[in-house]
């Protein structure tokens, strides 16, 4: 009786359109894209007007990024999962190649003290954004291929550790500590979910914590960011400046915000208002209600990823499950860090808010990632339906 009902439900879900896409993912992503576009315009209009004379400058580019991202997403979600599983190592090599290229003089573009971009015509490509997705695809495949040896430390863990080490070093050369942290935490989570022994896992965690601490202490600017984060009001005009401005934006928002377009903090007080600190502007203009809406949309996206992973596992599709877990972790880590930074809970990192912040590479990577999720969900759904 109960089993029959479940089958019925599954059939109804899958059957009402075999070619339909997961509405939870679609809705939350489109809502985030729409809200993001509105906020990018609002946050950048003054700066754009001042820099280019055209208030919609960033909005137009952002719209182009969205179109590009949705195009990539629709291609990815229609692709076959097995191709991705096989292509994992190539993605890894492509990612490493891009990270090496960005460091080559004459190719990498140097902005504000870091070399993170490759110039492609009018747009700058930020390889580290794509590398995040590539690494997730690679690690998901790795966990499937190495299932047998995973419980052994040397063949199972050391290999992935080497991969992380190479990518980490390349990212630190830029330097891009934020992305490195996101990749490391995501891989850690994937290893944990992928069945690595708890003892091994703890060794890796300890190594990661020690490494991060060393990197922080070794670099004055990172150290300053950390101390600035711990007490932003101690030096609100230098090290704590950005954070203090972000906190003020939140405080000004109250329950319902000062109204769309009415942010004061975006008027040159808050640096990177339309990129890393888009949430602060949203908090000021749309208030707590707006912030809770954004958190809820991301919660839907992330929890849905893990639900899809769970379903994939139940359907016996291990790679699909690892991929969905990886992507869920990637979104979770990136959004938690970005929002945490915006609210002064974490030291400042140059990390974007997926789907919302201005930035083409980030947009492309996020759209590809959600495309993969949509694909996984559809394949798993059709597969399990077919099995019944």
């Amino acid at each position, binding site marked *: 009786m109960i089993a029959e009902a479940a089958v019925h439900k599954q059939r109804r879900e899958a059957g009402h359109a075999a070619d339909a896409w997961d509405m939870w993912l679609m809705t939350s992503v489109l809502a985030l894209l729409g809200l993001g576009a509105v906020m990018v315009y609002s946050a950048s209009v003054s700066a754009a007007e001042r820099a280019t004379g055209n208030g919609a400058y960033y909005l137009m580019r952002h719209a182009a990024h969205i179109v590009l991202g949705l195009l990539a997403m629709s291609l990815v979600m229609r692709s076959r999962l097995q191709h991705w599983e096989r292509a994992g190592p190539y993605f890894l090599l492509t990612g490493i190649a891009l990270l090496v290229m960005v460091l080559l003089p004459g190719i990498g573009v140097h902005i504000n003290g870091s070399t993170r971009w490759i110039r492609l015509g009018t747009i700058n490509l930020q390889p580290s954004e794509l590398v995040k997705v590539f690494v997730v695809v690679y690690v998901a495949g790795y966990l499937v291929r190495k299932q047998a040896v995973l419980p052994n430390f040397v063949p199972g863990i050391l290999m992935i550790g080497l991969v992380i080490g190479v990518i980490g070093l390349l990212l630190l050369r830029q330097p891009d500590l934020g992305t490195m942290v996101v990749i490391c935490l995501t891989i850690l989570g994937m290893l944990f979910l992928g069945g690595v022994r708890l003892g091994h896992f703890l060794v890796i965690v300890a190594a990661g914590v020690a490494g991060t601490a060393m990197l922080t202490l070794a670099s004055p600017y990172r150290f300053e960011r950390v101390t600035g984060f711990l007490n932003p009001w101690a030096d609100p005009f230098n090290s704590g400046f950005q954070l203090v401005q972000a906190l*003020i934006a939140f405080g000004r928002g109250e329950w319902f915000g000062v109204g769309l377009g009415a942010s004061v903090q975006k008027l040159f007080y808050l640096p990177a208002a339309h990129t890393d600190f888009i949430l602060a502007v949203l908090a000021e203009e749309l208030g707590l209600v707006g912030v809770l809406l954004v*958190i809820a949309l991301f919660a839907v996206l992330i929890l849905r990823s893990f639900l899809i992973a769970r379903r994939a596992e139940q359907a016996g599709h291990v790679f699909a499950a690892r991929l969905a877990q990886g992507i869920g972790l990637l979104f979770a880590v990136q959004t938690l860090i970005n929002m945490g930074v915006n609210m*002064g809970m974490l030291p400042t990192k140059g990390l974007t808010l997926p789907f919302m912040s201005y930035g083409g590479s980030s947009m492309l990577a996020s759209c590809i990632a959600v495309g993969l999720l949509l694909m996984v969900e559809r394949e798993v759904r059709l597969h399990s339906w077919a099995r019944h």
Partner: protein
Amino acid sequence: MSNRAQTKTSSFRHWTVLLLVVSGLGLLVVRAVYLQVLSSEYLQAQGNARHLRVAEYNAVRGMILDRNGVPLAISTPVDSVWAHPPTLMQAGGRWGQLTALLDLDRRDLSDMLARHAAREFMYLKRHVTPEIAKRVMALQVPGVALQREYRRYYPAGAVAGHIIGFTNIDDQGQEGLELAYDERLRAIPGKKRVLKDRLGNIVESVESLSLPIPGKDLVVSLDRRIQYLAYRELKRAVAAHKARAAWAIVLDVRTGEVLAMVNEPGFNPNNRADLRSALFRNRAVTDVIEPGSTLKPFTIAAALESGKYTPDSLIDTAPGVIRIGRKTIKDVRNHGRLSVAGVIKKSSNVGATKIALGISKNRLWNLLRGVGFGETTGSGLPGESVGIINPPERWAAIDRATLSFGYGISITPLQLARAYTAIANDGVLVPVSLLHGDGGVQGERVMAKATALQVRRMLEMSVSGGGTGTAAQVNHYSVAGKTGTVHKLINGSYAQDNYVSLFAGVAPASRPRLVMVVAVDDPKRGGYFGGQIAAPIFSKVMAGAMRLLNISPDAPQPQQPTIVKASERRAT
């Protein structure tokens, strides 16, 4: 079995990760509530400290208008370029265009910015032309903005430079009427609380703290046309006689209003580069002179008031010299026996001395004090002198003698002009006013009507044929007046070859409307007697003023003094 375990994520691990993610999101929610609801007040206060500023809005200073409504000082809106020092300091790359446009030195700018580093406001250039202002804004240099201010413009320029005075760049009165009536003219800037972006631009006006109050217009007593006339004649005279300086004052007899007050050399208040303190002293009120013979009418008035003398009393001035103690007082030549009127007409020092010695000290003192010597005229002009007149207890015979013909007393030209209004006004002294009033002036009687009439009649004769002041005659109008030629007091002794040439007079004599005092300091060419130098200026200015004021002629033939009965005169 172990392989099987690895293909599936354990429920424990799945839920652990989910729990971590959900608690992370939960923490964000808690933090958001904390920031946006619980600490919003503190954070907003911090924000307000950064965004909210009190901005002042300048209002326009009142105009100064002449009695006919012609503007003498007006304010025009201009822009001043200012900077937010910390912001501009960071935009070092843009300084070049800015310094070129504003004609600043790069190093000066750097120094200024360093000095104002902790401030939020610094002027770069005050009062720039609209063209420059537009180009500065077009540069869009970070931290640079405009402020509306008002620049004072004086349409009459040098013509009324001294009397109007000028304001400083901050629109505060510095000299002349601009200073004297600053309180009335001054605009009170309004204050608003405004929201500023980080570059200092005003984004929004939050609340109005006080409204700007524009200054009130000031209608002054001057008549720009008479002022110009006096200015032109003084300028000519100073040039022609190579004089050091000259003054002229024209008063309305009935109201005491100053119709013209001119100093030469003048200065143009529109040209700030010209402003040197030596130039803009309004000598007509700040400097004292010895009035010389122009004081004699008051000696005579005191004598007539005493009853001991009548206009026809005879005084023997032969041989034109008189010794008082160890000093000798001389006339220009021996006039022999003169009537009291003749003493005025011929300006006999010996006659005046004998008359003064014939009346009591106190009578002379009271009359001189009565017509306002030794006290302020009430003009309110900055730096006005009260002059010096020693009290009678300290007068020796020689002091009485010299006082009778205007030495040993220091007065301002304005005081002299005011004293003559008593003669012109049938014995009633009116206060001097620089504001255009409604004419309801309360005068003070300082001599009998008959005395005033008699003195005026004598002064008429002194301008007629045979008198010292014939050059002061005005066609078709009768004139009453007195010349003066004063040895200048230089380093405590009287200089032999340096004079002040004076003329003080009233026109028309039969129905006085205007009093005018002219003084020319140290003429070097074309004579030095008051009758030669000052009287012609009086004549020319008065001739013009009579026509300008539509005063009907009272002397159809050139200067045939007519005797008019006292009863026919209009009382003041």
